[in-house]
């Protein structure tokens, strides 16, 4: 059997160029100083313990949707921060700034498109994730607490959708928010007060836009990050549920 002898000419190159130095600089620059940190803190063995955890044999495609949702969340956080660079949360300028992002800012259409589609697909993936957990009975003791946290996260995704929908400040978002805020008004006793609070007055206006914006970009993300950490910690602690 003939083997491919790469090492021979790799060694030749290594002798002529300071490959080690180049690689060190590369890791220093690109790998978040990984090499230098590893040298001092022995990150490799620590990371291997975390990342090389074996998963059970029965894992299949349907177990991936929690991960897909997380990926979409990361995309949404990233593109959301980029959109914040241009968005203006006032009723005079909100719509104009959205048009500005889409039409004038280089790659603005792409950033906004990613935010829009990732947000929409996230609702689907989170639902599939939930159905998988339900039909596998993975919500049962001892994972029942994680199910509760998961349901809260699902509601958070919907709240993100609801608050984010108002931000472009066009006709659709205005009326969707008006309708959404009217729904609690049928609740007994507290209903009209909840509607009043959600609308920030008698009709959806600047106050509602400012508050929805604050919820969408500051309050909900931090609650989500907190609950998500709990969610992941519990998954790690309890492991993945057994096969059907």
């Amino acid at each position: 059997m003939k083997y491919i002898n790469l090492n021979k000419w790799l060694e030749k190159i290594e002798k002529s160029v300071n490959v080690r130095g180049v690689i060190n600089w590369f890791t220093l620059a690109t790998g978040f100083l990984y090499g230098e940190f590893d040298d001092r803190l022995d990150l490799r063995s620590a990371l291997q313990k975390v990342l090389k955890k074996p998963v059970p044999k029965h894992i299949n495609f349907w177990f991936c949707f929690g991960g897909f949702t997380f990926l979409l969340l990361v995309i949404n956080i990233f593109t959301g921060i980029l959109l914040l660079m241009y968005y203006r949360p006032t009723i005079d300028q909100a719509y104009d700034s959205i048009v500005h992002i889409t039409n004038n800012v280089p790659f603005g259409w792409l950033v906004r498109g990613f935010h829009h589609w990732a947000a929409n697909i996230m609702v689907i993936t989170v639902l599939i994730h939930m159905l998988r957990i339900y039909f596998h009975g993975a919500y049962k003791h001892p994972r029942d607490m994680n199910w509760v946290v998961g349901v809260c996260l699902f509601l958070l995704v919907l709240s993100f959708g609801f608050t984010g929908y108002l931000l472009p400040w066009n006709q659709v978002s205005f009326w969707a928010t008006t309708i959404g805020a009217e729904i609690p008004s049928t609740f007994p006793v507290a209903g009209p007060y909840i509607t009043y609070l959600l609308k920030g007055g008698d009709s959806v206006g600047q106050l509602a836009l400012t508050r929805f914006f604050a919820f969408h970009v500051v309050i909900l993300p931090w609650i989500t990050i907190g609950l998500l950490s709990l969610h992941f910690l519990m998954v790690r602690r309890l492991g993945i549920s057994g096969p059907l």
Partner: protein
Amino acid sequence: MEEITRKDFLHSTVNTLIGLWVTATAVLSSYAGLRYLWPTEKTAGGPGGNKASFPLTELPEGDMKKVLIGGKPAGIIRLNKDLYALSLICTHLGCIVSWHPEEKRLICPCHGGVYDINGAVLGGPPPRPLPSYEVRLRGDTVVVG
């Protein structure tokens, strides 16, 4: 001296491809991200009220110069030593109208809306005249907005 087996070779090939893919993605998204964030003539002004100015020599008699005001296209026309500044966004469906010097008309290429030098509708489907901007001559500089 160790020899490389087929398995190791495939392993490092796949790893190299993944590395190249990640690097390409990183480079391309940094490029897009930097382009997105970098202030330009179009983006720095933003959607609010804005001004534009240029030397008069850039605008010959009878011609039109395109500028951006608040990120939106506007045209400055010099005709009979007078200056006219109009929005170039057709009020019908938002196409960019063009200046026809021989007819002294602004005509929309999409559905044939016709405007005169003051923006008034002369024909076609546009429901409203073109909005105009304030334009002044300050020394040798044309100031719009």
